[in-house]
């Protein structure tokens, strides 16, 4: 009995071990130089993985993404600046390799589009509100004499009801 409970306690304790400890072998950290890796990651975050398209090479584990990250690492190590490295990639893969598209003539619409839509939306909204306000104003003014009479009558009968 005692032995059984000891075993089960041991088993539960094993289950409670923090998972990362059990899986510690999985992720091999390659950061011999954390400062360098940080810079590599920063640049890799700006570059699109061309075969996965909606990921940066920092996020992707595709072969090409790993190669490109290695290339970035080599270039950082040899003292190239972020700008130089991104220019190098753009020279070879085109603007598409930038995860953030650059602002230039062919991308003006892309950058300005959302603001333009917002602006149009606000203008339309303002106009509609104005129109609605005008309409209600008009209606208020436009009470006919008969309506006024009717209104007065209603109010009067209400008053009498309240009195009694």
């Amino acid at each position: 009995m005692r032995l059984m409970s000891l075993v089960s306690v041991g088993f539960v304790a094993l289950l409670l071990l923090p998972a990362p400890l059990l899986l510690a072998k999985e992720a091999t950290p390659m950061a011999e130089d954390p400062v360098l890796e940080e810079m590599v990651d920063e640049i890799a975050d700006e570059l699109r993985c061309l075969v996965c398209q909606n990921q940066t090479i920092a996020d992707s584990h595709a072969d090409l993404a790993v190669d490109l990250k290695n290339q970035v690492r080599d270039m950082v190590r040899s003292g190239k600046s972020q700008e130089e490295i991104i220019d190098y990639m753009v020279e070879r893969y085109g603007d598409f390799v930038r995860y953030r598209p650059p602002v230039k003539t062919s991308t003006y619409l892309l950058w300005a589009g959302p603001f333009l839509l917002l602006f149009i939306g606000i203008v339309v909204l303002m106009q509609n509100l104005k129109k609605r306000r005008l309409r209600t104003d008009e209606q208020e003014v436009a009470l006919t004499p008969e309506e006024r009479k009717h209104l007065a009558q209603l109010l009067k009968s209400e008053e009498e009801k309240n009195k009694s």
Partner: protein
Amino acid sequence: MRFLLPLGLFSVIVGFLWVGLSLNPQEVPSPLIDKPAPDFTLPQLHDPQQTFSNKDMLGKVWMLNVWASWCVACRQEHPLLVQMSRAKLFPVVGLNYKDERADALRWLQHDGDPYLLSVIDKNGKVGIDYGVYGVPESFVIDKQGVIRHKVIGPLGPAELQNCVIPLVRELEKATGESQVSEEVKKACA
């Protein structure tokens, strides 16, 4: 009048989607067109003791074909390359991209070797220099060593017939700064 505005907006959206959906997102336009081909010197596949450089081809119009034995689409393209080499159309140099040498040699022995020679790009560095992101890719390079056309994915008979062959013929005839005719430009666009 009331329905004109929504209708107009709708047609604009349809227009954008029409153009957007007809583009091939896999095809990234290469900025390397009309730029000098990046220099490389690499060991040859058949005899690694010997090297080959892109500069060895100056004065000739040639094609650099990026291939690998692990690449499925290359198998699709391969018979056409073999036919081309039988017809002696123009020299094709193979860039054996991130491959095992033994596998690559076995493939060429088995399915035919359409290449003038192949070079080994074991770690894909030269591939990166050429902006390679999918294999196969082919570059048409002129006598001055300038990239004039890039084929992404397997080369098909239609593109070969309509674009690549006329382009190569024009580039071969040209002396000095070679201008390409509008017809060929259109066929290759």
